[in-house]
Protein backbone atom coordinates (compact mmCIF):
# COMPACT_ATOMS: atom_id res chain seq x y z
CA UNK A 1 0.00 0.00 0.00
CA UNK A 2 2.60 2.49 1.12
CA UNK A 3 4.96 1.34 -1.58
CA UNK A 4 2.43 1.91 -4.37
CA UNK A 5 1.67 5.33 -3.03
CA UNK A 6 5.26 6.49 -2.73
CA UNK A 7 6.67 4.79 -5.83
CA UNK A 8 4.27 6.52 -8.19
CA UNK A 9 3.59 9.69 -6.21
CA UNK A 10 4.08 13.00 -8.03
CA UNK A 11 2.91 15.39 -5.31
CA UNK A 12 4.89 18.62 -5.60
CA UNK A 13 6.12 17.88 -9.13
CA UNK A 14 5.26 19.88 -12.22
CA UNK A 15 5.00 18.26 -15.65
CA UNK A 16 5.02 20.04 -19.00
CA UNK A 17 3.13 18.04 -21.63
CA UNK A 18 3.32 19.31 -25.19
CA UNK A 19 0.30 18.60 -27.34
CA UNK A 20 -1.48 17.94 -24.06
CA UNK A 21 -4.96 19.08 -25.05
CA UNK A 22 -6.13 15.85 -26.65
CA UNK A 23 -5.30 12.27 -27.59
CA UNK A 24 -2.25 10.63 -26.09
CA UNK A 25 -1.09 13.88 -24.49
CA UNK A 26 -4.33 14.37 -22.59
CA UNK A 27 -4.24 10.75 -21.45
CA UNK A 28 -0.76 11.32 -20.02
CA UNK A 29 -1.92 14.55 -18.33
CA UNK A 30 -4.73 12.62 -16.64
CA UNK A 31 -2.34 9.97 -15.33
CA UNK A 32 0.30 12.37 -14.00
CA UNK A 33 -2.34 14.65 -12.55
CA UNK A 34 -4.16 11.84 -10.76
CA UNK A 35 -0.89 10.96 -9.04
CA UNK A 36 -0.45 14.51 -7.79
CA UNK A 37 1.50 16.45 -10.38
CA UNK A 38 0.57 19.92 -11.56
CA UNK A 39 0.36 19.61 -15.34
CA UNK A 40 1.10 22.38 -17.82
CA UNK A 41 -0.28 21.74 -21.28
CA UNK A 42 0.83 23.30 -24.53
CA UNK A 43 -1.09 23.23 -27.79
CA UNK A 44 -1.68 25.52 -30.73
CA UNK A 45 -5.39 26.15 -30.17
CA UNK A 46 -6.58 28.22 -27.20
CA UNK A 47 -10.10 26.76 -27.18
CA UNK A 48 -8.84 23.17 -27.07
CA UNK A 49 -6.41 24.07 -24.27
CA UNK A 50 -9.19 25.67 -22.25
CA UNK A 51 -11.41 22.62 -22.74
CA UNK A 52 -8.61 20.26 -21.68
CA UNK A 53 -7.74 22.29 -18.57
CA UNK A 54 -11.44 22.32 -17.63
CA UNK A 55 -11.67 18.56 -18.23
CA UNK A 56 -8.65 17.96 -15.96
CA UNK A 57 -9.94 20.36 -13.31
CA UNK A 58 -13.22 18.43 -13.24
CA UNK A 59 -11.16 15.34 -12.38
CA UNK A 60 -9.61 17.24 -9.49
CA UNK A 61 -6.33 17.76 -11.31
CA UNK A 62 -4.27 20.92 -11.00
CA UNK A 63 -3.61 22.09 -14.57
CA UNK A 64 -2.65 25.20 -16.53
CA UNK A 65 -1.75 25.91 -20.12
CA UNK A 66 0.57 27.84 -22.40
CA UNK A 67 -0.53 28.38 -25.98
CA UNK A 68 2.34 27.58 -28.33
CA UNK A 69 3.29 26.04 -31.64
CA UNK A 70 6.35 24.04 -30.63
CA UNK A 71 7.34 23.74 -34.28
CA UNK A 72 8.50 27.38 -34.14
CA UNK A 73 12.18 27.76 -33.23
CA UNK A 74 11.56 30.32 -30.45
CA UNK A 75 8.66 28.44 -28.88
CA UNK A 76 10.65 26.41 -26.34
CA UNK A 77 12.28 29.46 -24.76
CA UNK A 78 9.01 31.41 -24.83
CA UNK A 79 7.09 28.59 -23.13
CA UNK A 80 9.72 28.37 -20.39
CA UNK A 81 9.64 32.17 -19.96
CA UNK A 82 5.88 32.03 -19.33
CA UNK A 83 6.29 29.13 -16.90
CA UNK A 84 8.98 31.01 -14.97
CA UNK A 85 6.95 34.22 -14.97
CA UNK A 86 4.05 32.31 -13.43
CA UNK A 87 6.35 31.07 -10.70
CA UNK A 88 6.23 27.49 -11.88
CA UNK A 89 8.94 25.06 -12.96
CA UNK A 90 9.38 21.93 -15.05
CA UNK A 91 10.43 18.74 -13.26
CA UNK A 92 9.02 16.44 -15.90
CA UNK A 93 9.01 17.13 -19.63
CA UNK A 94 6.73 15.03 -21.81
CA UNK A 95 7.53 15.64 -25.48
CA UNK A 96 4.25 14.47 -26.93
CA UNK A 97 3.37 17.00 -29.65
CA UNK A 98 3.72 15.40 -33.04
CA UNK A 99 2.51 15.57 -36.58
CA UNK A 100 2.39 13.19 -39.52
CA UNK A 101 2.57 13.49 -43.28
CA UNK A 102 1.36 10.76 -45.59
CA UNK A 103 3.17 10.76 -48.91
CA UNK A 104 5.22 8.48 -51.07
CA UNK A 105 8.89 9.29 -50.59
CA UNK A 106 9.34 10.25 -54.24
CA UNK A 107 6.66 12.94 -53.85
CA UNK A 108 7.47 14.13 -50.31
CA UNK A 109 8.07 17.91 -50.45
CA UNK A 110 11.10 19.36 -48.69
CA UNK A 111 9.09 21.99 -46.84
CA UNK A 112 6.79 19.27 -45.49
CA UNK A 113 9.79 17.23 -44.36
CA UNK A 114 11.26 20.26 -42.61
CA UNK A 115 7.97 21.21 -40.94
CA UNK A 116 7.50 17.70 -39.62
CA UNK A 117 11.04 17.43 -38.27
CA UNK A 118 10.64 20.82 -36.59
CA UNK A 119 7.71 19.51 -34.54
CA UNK A 120 8.66 15.87 -34.03
CA UNK A 121 12.41 16.12 -33.48
CA UNK A 122 13.71 19.69 -33.18
CA UNK A 123 11.06 20.74 -30.66
CA UNK A 124 11.89 17.89 -28.23
CA UNK A 125 15.57 18.90 -28.50
CA UNK A 126 14.92 22.58 -27.80
CA UNK A 127 12.43 21.89 -25.00
CA UNK A 128 14.79 19.40 -23.33
CA UNK A 129 17.64 21.88 -23.61
CA UNK A 130 15.59 24.69 -22.06
CA UNK A 131 14.01 22.57 -19.33
CA UNK A 132 17.32 21.01 -18.33
CA UNK A 133 19.27 24.28 -18.24
CA UNK A 134 16.64 26.23 -16.34
CA UNK A 135 15.20 23.63 -14.00
CA UNK A 136 16.47 20.06 -14.08
CA UNK A 137 20.25 20.45 -13.99
CA UNK A 138 20.15 23.03 -11.16
CA UNK A 139 17.78 20.74 -9.22
CA UNK A 140 19.79 17.60 -9.93
CA UNK A 141 16.54 15.84 -10.80
CA UNK A 142 14.52 15.58 -13.97
CA UNK A 143 12.44 13.24 -16.07
CA UNK A 144 12.14 13.46 -19.84
CA UNK A 145 9.58 11.28 -21.57
CA UNK A 146 9.49 11.34 -25.36
CA UNK A 147 6.42 10.01 -27.10
CA UNK A 148 7.86 8.26 -30.14
CA UNK A 149 6.00 5.55 -32.05
CA UNK A 150 6.37 1.98 -33.20
CA UNK A 151 6.93 3.72 -36.55
CA UNK A 152 10.26 4.79 -35.07
CA UNK A 153 11.23 1.16 -34.47
CA UNK A 154 10.15 -0.29 -37.80
CA UNK A 155 9.47 0.76 -41.35
CA UNK A 156 5.96 1.51 -42.46
CA UNK A 157 3.57 -1.31 -43.29
CA UNK A 158 4.23 -2.20 -46.93
CA UNK A 159 0.55 -2.06 -47.82
CA UNK A 160 0.07 1.47 -46.48
CA UNK A 161 0.89 4.88 -47.95
CA UNK A 162 4.38 5.93 -46.91
CA UNK A 163 5.18 8.24 -44.00
CA UNK A 164 8.93 8.59 -44.57
CA UNK A 165 9.38 11.81 -42.60
CA UNK A 166 7.35 10.48 -39.66
CA UNK A 167 9.34 7.23 -39.50
CA UNK A 168 12.62 9.14 -39.74
CA UNK A 169 11.59 11.63 -37.05
CA UNK A 170 10.43 8.99 -34.59
CA UNK A 171 13.51 6.83 -35.16
CA UNK A 172 15.56 9.94 -34.55
CA UNK A 173 13.61 10.73 -31.39
CA UNK A 174 14.34 7.25 -30.04
CA UNK A 175 18.09 7.55 -30.44
CA UNK A 176 17.93 11.17 -29.26
CA UNK A 177 16.44 9.67 -26.09
CA UNK A 178 19.32 7.23 -25.63
CA UNK A 179 21.90 9.96 -26.23
CA UNK A 180 20.21 12.25 -23.70
CA UNK A 181 20.11 9.43 -21.16
CA UNK A 182 23.80 8.73 -21.59
CA UNK A 183 24.74 12.40 -21.34
CA UNK A 184 22.49 13.55 -18.49
CA UNK A 185 22.43 10.47 -16.27
CA UNK A 186 25.13 11.93 -14.07
CA UNK A 187 22.98 15.04 -13.60
CA UNK A 188 20.08 13.07 -12.16
CA UNK A 189 17.97 13.31 -15.30
CA UNK A 190 16.45 10.24 -16.92
CA UNK A 191 15.23 10.15 -20.50
CA UNK A 192 12.96 7.45 -21.88
CA UNK A 193 10.62 6.98 -24.80
CA UNK A 194 7.22 5.45 -25.28
CA UNK A 195 6.55 3.84 -28.63
CA UNK A 196 2.76 3.67 -28.95
CA UNK A 197 1.19 1.51 -31.60
CA UNK A 198 -2.04 2.58 -33.25
CA UNK A 199 -4.44 4.51 -31.04
CA UNK A 200 -7.63 5.98 -32.50
CA UNK A 201 -7.12 9.76 -32.73
CA UNK A 202 -7.46 12.63 -35.13
CA UNK A 203 -3.91 11.92 -36.36
CA UNK A 204 -4.60 8.25 -37.13
CA UNK A 205 -8.23 8.50 -38.26
CA UNK A 206 -7.52 8.23 -41.97
CA UNK A 207 -5.12 5.30 -41.63
CA UNK A 208 -7.40 3.40 -39.25
CA UNK A 209 -10.45 3.89 -41.47
CA UNK A 210 -8.55 2.25 -44.29
CA UNK A 211 -6.33 -0.28 -42.49
CA UNK A 212 -7.70 -0.65 -38.96
CA UNK A 213 -8.91 -4.22 -39.45
CA UNK A 214 -5.56 -5.37 -40.88
CA UNK A 215 -3.62 -3.65 -38.09
CA UNK A 216 -5.79 -5.23 -35.42
CA UNK A 217 -5.43 -8.66 -37.00
CA UNK A 218 -1.63 -8.26 -36.90
CA UNK A 219 -1.61 -7.35 -33.20
CA UNK A 220 -1.24 -10.17 -30.64
CA UNK A 221 -3.56 -8.37 -28.22
CA UNK A 222 -6.14 -8.16 -31.02
CA UNK A 223 -7.13 -4.55 -30.48
CA UNK A 224 -6.05 -0.95 -30.92
CA UNK A 225 -4.83 1.24 -28.08
CA UNK A 226 -7.37 2.88 -25.75
CA UNK A 227 -7.72 5.95 -23.55
CA UNK A 228 -5.90 4.31 -20.62
CA UNK A 229 -3.12 2.28 -22.22
CA UNK A 230 -0.31 4.82 -21.90
CA UNK A 231 -1.02 5.81 -18.33
CA UNK A 232 0.85 3.13 -16.42
CA UNK A 233 3.96 3.30 -18.57
CA UNK A 234 4.06 7.09 -18.43
CA UNK A 235 3.80 6.98 -14.64
CA UNK A 236 6.50 4.33 -14.34
CA UNK A 237 8.97 6.40 -16.36
CA UNK A 238 8.45 9.79 -14.65
CA UNK A 239 8.24 8.74 -10.99
CA UNK A 240 10.54 7.19 -8.39
CA UNK A 241 9.30 3.83 -9.67
CA UNK A 242 11.50 4.43 -12.72
CA UNK A 243 14.49 5.85 -10.87
CA UNK A 244 16.93 3.36 -12.42
CA UNK A 245 15.31 3.25 -15.86
CA UNK A 246 16.85 5.50 -18.48
CA UNK A 247 17.55 5.42 -22.19
CA UNK A 248 14.79 2.89 -22.76
CA UNK A 249 12.07 2.72 -25.35
CA UNK A 250 8.94 0.86 -24.36
CA UNK A 251 6.51 -0.21 -27.08
CA UNK A 252 2.86 0.05 -26.08
CA UNK A 253 1.31 -1.64 -29.03
CA UNK A 254 -0.28 -4.90 -27.93
CA UNK A 255 2.78 -6.70 -29.27
CA UNK A 256 2.39 -5.50 -32.88
CA UNK A 257 6.06 -4.56 -33.27
CA UNK A 258 7.47 -7.93 -32.21
CA UNK A 259 6.30 -9.65 -35.39
Amino acid at each position, binding site marked *: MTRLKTLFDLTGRTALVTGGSRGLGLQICEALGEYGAHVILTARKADELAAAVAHLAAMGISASSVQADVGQPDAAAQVMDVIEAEGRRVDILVNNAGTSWGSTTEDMPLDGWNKLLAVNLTAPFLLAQQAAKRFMIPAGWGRILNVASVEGLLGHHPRMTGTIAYNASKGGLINFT*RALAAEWGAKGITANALAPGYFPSRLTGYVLDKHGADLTADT*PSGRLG*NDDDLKGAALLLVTDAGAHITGQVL*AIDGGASII
Partner: protein
Amino acid sequence: MRAIDGFRLDGQVAVVTGGGGGLGAAGALALAEAGADIALVARNRAKLEAAAQAVEATGRRALIVEADVADEASITGAAEAVKAALGRIDILFNNAGITNPQTVLDIDPADFRRLQDVNVTGAFLTIRAFVPGMIAAGYGRIVNMGSILSARGMANRAAYCASKAGLANLGQACAFEFGPHGVTVNTLAATVIVTDLNRDLVRTQPELYEAITRRTPLGRLGETDDLMGALLFLSSPASGFVTGQTLFVDGGYTAG
Protein backbone atom coordinates in the same frame (compact mmCIF):
# COMPACT_ATOMS: atom_id res chain seq x y z
CA MET B 1 -10.20 2.90 -15.36
CA ARG B 2 -8.70 5.61 -13.22
CA ALA B 3 -4.91 5.70 -13.50
CA ILE B 4 -4.72 5.59 -9.73
CA ASP B 5 -6.25 2.10 -9.72
CA GLY B 6 -4.19 0.66 -12.55
CA PHE B 7 -1.45 -0.77 -10.35
CA ARG B 8 -3.77 -2.39 -7.80
CA LEU B 9 -3.82 -6.19 -7.57
CA ASP B 10 -6.64 -6.69 -5.08
CA GLY B 11 -8.18 -10.14 -5.23
CA GLN B 12 -5.46 -11.48 -7.50
CA VAL B 13 -3.02 -14.35 -7.00
CA ALA B 14 0.65 -14.07 -7.96
CA VAL B 15 3.14 -16.92 -8.27
CA VAL B 16 6.80 -16.11 -7.68
CA THR B 17 9.45 -18.71 -8.48
CA GLY B 18 12.97 -18.79 -7.09
CA GLY B 19 14.07 -18.52 -3.51
CA GLY B 20 17.68 -17.34 -3.53
CA GLY B 21 19.09 -13.88 -4.00
CA GLY B 22 16.36 -11.84 -2.41
CA LEU B 23 14.67 -10.69 -5.59
CA GLY B 24 11.88 -13.26 -5.34
CA ALA B 25 11.17 -12.23 -1.76
CA ALA B 26 11.23 -8.52 -2.58
CA GLY B 27 8.97 -9.06 -5.58
CA ALA B 28 6.55 -11.15 -3.56
CA LEU B 29 6.33 -8.43 -0.93
CA ALA B 30 5.75 -5.67 -3.49
CA LEU B 31 3.00 -7.66 -5.20
CA ALA B 32 1.42 -8.37 -1.82
CA GLU B 33 1.52 -4.69 -0.89
CA ALA B 34 -0.39 -4.02 -4.12
CA GLY B 35 -3.06 -6.45 -2.93
CA ALA B 36 -2.21 -9.90 -4.30
CA ASP B 37 -2.06 -13.20 -2.46
CA ILE B 38 1.26 -14.90 -3.11
CA ALA B 39 2.45 -18.41 -3.90
CA LEU B 40 6.19 -18.82 -3.38
CA VAL B 41 7.71 -21.66 -5.38
CA ALA B 42 11.26 -22.95 -4.89
CA ARG B 43 13.16 -26.14 -4.22
CA ASN B 44 13.90 -25.38 -0.60
CA ARG B 45 11.03 -24.41 1.71
CA ALA B 46 13.39 -23.05 4.36
CA LYS B 47 14.52 -20.26 2.03
CA LEU B 48 10.93 -19.08 1.63
CA GLU B 49 9.75 -18.91 5.24
CA ALA B 50 10.90 -15.34 5.83
CA ALA B 51 9.39 -14.16 2.54
CA ALA B 52 6.08 -15.81 3.41
CA GLN B 53 6.02 -14.10 6.80
CA ALA B 54 6.69 -10.72 5.17
CA VAL B 55 3.76 -11.30 2.79
CA GLU B 56 1.45 -12.29 5.64
CA ALA B 57 2.46 -9.18 7.57
CA THR B 58 0.80 -7.14 4.80
CA GLY B 59 -2.46 -8.98 5.41
CA ARG B 60 -2.26 -11.11 2.28
CA ARG B 61 -2.14 -14.89 2.11
CA ALA B 62 1.19 -16.65 1.44
CA LEU B 63 1.54 -20.21 0.22
CA ILE B 64 4.87 -22.02 0.08
CA VAL B 65 5.20 -24.71 -2.57
CA GLU B 66 8.35 -26.81 -2.80
CA ALA B 67 9.01 -27.58 -6.45
CA ASP B 68 11.76 -27.72 -9.08
CA VAL B 69 10.96 -25.57 -12.12
CA ALA B 70 13.15 -27.79 -14.29
CA ASP B 71 11.08 -30.87 -13.43
CA GLU B 72 7.82 -31.05 -15.38
CA ALA B 73 5.94 -33.24 -12.91
CA SER B 74 7.12 -31.14 -10.00
CA ILE B 75 6.09 -27.75 -11.44
CA THR B 76 2.81 -29.14 -12.77
CA GLY B 77 2.06 -30.36 -9.27
CA ALA B 78 2.90 -26.89 -7.95
CA ALA B 79 0.33 -25.33 -10.28
CA GLU B 80 -2.31 -27.75 -9.00
CA ALA B 81 -1.37 -26.95 -5.40
CA VAL B 82 -1.68 -23.20 -6.02
CA LYS B 83 -5.06 -23.61 -7.72
CA ALA B 84 -6.31 -25.78 -4.88
CA ALA B 85 -5.13 -23.46 -2.12
CA LEU B 86 -5.59 -19.99 -3.61
CA GLY B 87 -8.22 -20.68 -6.27
CA ARG B 88 -6.83 -18.77 -9.22
CA ILE B 89 -3.70 -17.51 -10.96
CA ASP B 90 -3.34 -14.00 -12.35
CA ILE B 91 0.38 -13.25 -12.26
CA LEU B 92 3.45 -15.42 -12.82
CA PHE B 93 6.85 -13.93 -11.97
CA ASN B 94 9.38 -16.35 -13.44
CA ASN B 95 12.31 -15.39 -11.27
CA ALA B 96 14.02 -18.75 -10.71
CA GLY B 97 17.45 -18.81 -12.31
CA ILE B 98 21.06 -19.78 -11.84
CA THR B 99 24.34 -18.46 -13.20
CA ASN B 100 27.78 -19.80 -14.01
CA PRO B 101 30.89 -17.64 -14.20
CA GLN B 102 32.99 -19.86 -16.46
CA THR B 103 34.44 -19.18 -19.90
CA VAL B 104 33.22 -20.89 -23.05
CA LEU B 105 36.33 -23.08 -23.06
CA ASP B 106 36.23 -23.94 -19.37
CA ILE B 107 32.56 -24.65 -18.71
CA ASP B 108 31.59 -28.31 -18.54
CA PRO B 109 28.93 -28.87 -21.23
CA ALA B 110 26.83 -30.61 -18.60
CA ASP B 111 26.83 -27.41 -16.55
CA PHE B 112 25.93 -25.39 -19.64
CA ARG B 113 22.97 -27.69 -20.26
CA ARG B 114 21.92 -27.61 -16.62
CA LEU B 115 21.80 -23.81 -16.73
CA GLN B 116 19.57 -23.82 -19.85
CA ASP B 117 17.45 -26.45 -18.11
CA VAL B 118 16.70 -24.13 -15.21
CA ASN B 119 16.69 -20.70 -16.87
CA VAL B 120 14.95 -21.47 -20.16
CA THR B 121 13.28 -24.87 -19.93
CA GLY B 122 12.29 -24.15 -16.33
CA ALA B 123 10.50 -20.96 -17.38
CA PHE B 124 8.91 -22.80 -20.30
CA LEU B 125 7.63 -25.58 -18.05
CA THR B 126 6.40 -23.10 -15.47
CA ILE B 127 4.51 -21.11 -18.10
CA ARG B 128 3.00 -24.34 -19.45
CA ALA B 129 1.90 -25.32 -15.97
CA PHE B 130 0.30 -21.99 -15.00
CA VAL B 131 -0.94 -20.38 -18.21
CA PRO B 132 -3.97 -22.63 -18.82
CA GLY B 133 -5.63 -21.07 -15.77
CA MET B 134 -4.93 -17.59 -17.13
CA ILE B 135 -6.25 -18.47 -20.59
CA ALA B 136 -9.41 -19.92 -19.07
CA ALA B 137 -9.93 -16.67 -17.15
CA GLY B 138 -9.10 -14.46 -20.13
CA TYR B 139 -6.54 -12.51 -18.12
CA GLY B 140 -2.93 -12.98 -17.09
CA ARG B 141 0.43 -11.30 -16.58
CA ILE B 142 3.66 -13.24 -17.07
CA VAL B 143 6.93 -11.51 -16.17
CA ASN B 144 10.13 -13.33 -17.02
CA MET B 145 13.28 -12.27 -15.21
CA GLY B 146 15.82 -11.09 -17.75
CA SER B 147 19.11 -9.26 -17.63
CA ILE B 148 21.22 -6.77 -19.50
CA LEU B 149 22.69 -10.03 -20.82
CA SER B 150 19.35 -10.73 -22.53
CA ALA B 151 20.65 -8.32 -25.18
CA ARG B 152 24.39 -7.85 -24.55
CA GLY B 153 27.39 -10.13 -24.33
CA MET B 154 29.82 -10.49 -21.46
CA ALA B 155 32.95 -12.54 -20.84
CA ASN B 156 32.61 -15.52 -18.49
CA ARG B 157 28.83 -15.53 -18.79
CA ALA B 158 28.20 -17.44 -22.03
CA ALA B 159 25.72 -19.91 -20.60
CA TYR B 160 23.82 -17.17 -18.80
CA CYS B 161 23.84 -14.89 -21.89
CA ALA B 162 22.43 -17.69 -24.04
CA SER B 163 19.74 -18.49 -21.49
CA LYS B 164 18.57 -14.92 -20.92
CA ALA B 165 18.43 -14.08 -24.63
CA GLY B 166 16.52 -17.30 -25.16
CA LEU B 167 14.13 -16.49 -22.36
CA ALA B 168 13.43 -13.00 -23.75
CA ASN B 169 12.55 -14.38 -27.17
CA LEU B 170 10.57 -17.22 -25.63
CA GLY B 171 8.59 -14.39 -24.07
CA GLN B 172 7.92 -12.83 -27.48
CA ALA B 173 6.66 -16.15 -28.82
CA CYS B 174 4.43 -16.59 -25.78
CA ALA B 175 3.17 -13.01 -26.21
CA PHE B 176 1.91 -13.96 -29.66
CA GLU B 177 0.25 -17.17 -28.58
CA PHE B 178 -1.39 -15.82 -25.44
CA GLY B 179 -2.22 -12.27 -26.62
CA PRO B 180 -5.67 -13.18 -27.93
CA HIS B 181 -6.50 -14.56 -24.46
CA GLY B 182 -5.70 -11.39 -22.55
CA VAL B 183 -2.40 -12.73 -21.25
CA THR B 184 0.66 -10.48 -21.63
CA VAL B 185 4.24 -11.75 -21.46
CA ASN B 186 7.16 -9.41 -20.85
CA THR B 187 10.77 -9.54 -19.72
CA LEU B 188 12.06 -7.51 -16.78
CA ALA B 189 15.74 -7.08 -17.61
CA ALA B 190 17.96 -6.00 -14.75
CA THR B 191 21.50 -4.81 -14.48
CA VAL B 192 23.63 -6.47 -11.76
CA ILE B 193 21.51 -6.27 -8.63
CA VAL B 194 23.16 -5.85 -5.25
CA THR B 195 21.66 -8.46 -2.93
CA ASP B 196 22.69 -10.18 0.27
CA LEU B 197 24.58 -12.69 -1.89
CA ASN B 198 27.02 -10.17 -3.37
CA ARG B 199 26.78 -7.06 -1.18
CA ASP B 200 30.12 -7.64 0.55
CA LEU B 201 31.81 -8.36 -2.76
CA VAL B 202 30.48 -5.14 -4.29
CA ARG B 203 31.84 -3.21 -1.31
CA THR B 204 35.22 -4.89 -1.01
CA GLN B 205 35.99 -5.61 -4.67
CA PRO B 206 34.27 -2.86 -6.68
CA GLU B 207 36.71 -3.45 -9.53
CA LEU B 208 34.79 -6.63 -10.35
CA TYR B 209 31.80 -4.48 -11.24
CA GLU B 210 33.59 -1.46 -12.64
CA ALA B 211 33.11 -2.59 -16.24
CA ILE B 212 29.39 -2.18 -15.68
CA THR B 213 29.22 0.93 -13.52
CA ARG B 214 31.55 2.98 -15.71
CA ARG B 215 29.29 2.32 -18.69
CA THR B 216 26.12 3.09 -16.75
CA PRO B 217 24.79 6.66 -17.17
CA LEU B 218 23.28 6.61 -13.67
CA GLY B 219 26.65 5.44 -12.34
CA ARG B 220 25.67 2.59 -10.05
CA LEU B 221 24.52 -1.02 -9.97
CA GLY B 222 20.91 -1.87 -9.19
CA GLU B 223 19.10 -2.55 -5.92
CA THR B 224 16.11 -4.86 -5.64
CA ASP B 225 13.95 -1.81 -4.91
CA ASP B 226 14.86 -0.39 -8.32
CA LEU B 227 12.96 -3.25 -9.93
CA MET B 228 9.74 -3.05 -7.96
CA GLY B 229 8.07 -0.26 -9.95
CA ALA B 230 8.65 -2.03 -13.24
CA LEU B 231 7.57 -5.36 -11.75
CA LEU B 232 4.34 -3.84 -10.44
CA PHE B 233 3.70 -2.21 -13.80
CA LEU B 234 4.24 -5.38 -15.82
CA SER B 235 2.21 -7.41 -13.27
CA SER B 236 -0.80 -5.11 -13.17
CA PRO B 237 -3.75 -4.03 -15.34
CA ALA B 238 -1.74 -0.84 -16.08
CA SER B 239 0.37 -2.72 -18.66
CA GLY B 240 -2.56 -4.22 -20.58
CA PHE B 241 -1.33 -3.06 -24.01
CA VAL B 242 2.35 -3.95 -23.38
CA THR B 243 3.40 -7.42 -24.45
CA GLY B 244 6.45 -9.13 -25.86
CA GLN B 245 8.64 -6.33 -24.53
CA THR B 246 11.94 -6.38 -22.68
CA LEU B 247 12.06 -3.54 -20.17
CA PHE B 248 15.59 -2.80 -19.00
CA VAL B 249 16.04 -1.46 -15.48
CA ASP B 250 19.73 -0.86 -15.81
CA GLY B 251 20.57 2.77 -15.16
CA GLY B 252 20.95 3.21 -18.90
CA TYR B 253 23.60 0.51 -19.43
CA THR B 254 21.96 -0.68 -22.66
CA ALA B 255 21.46 2.88 -23.93
CA GLY B 256 25.12 3.89 -23.85
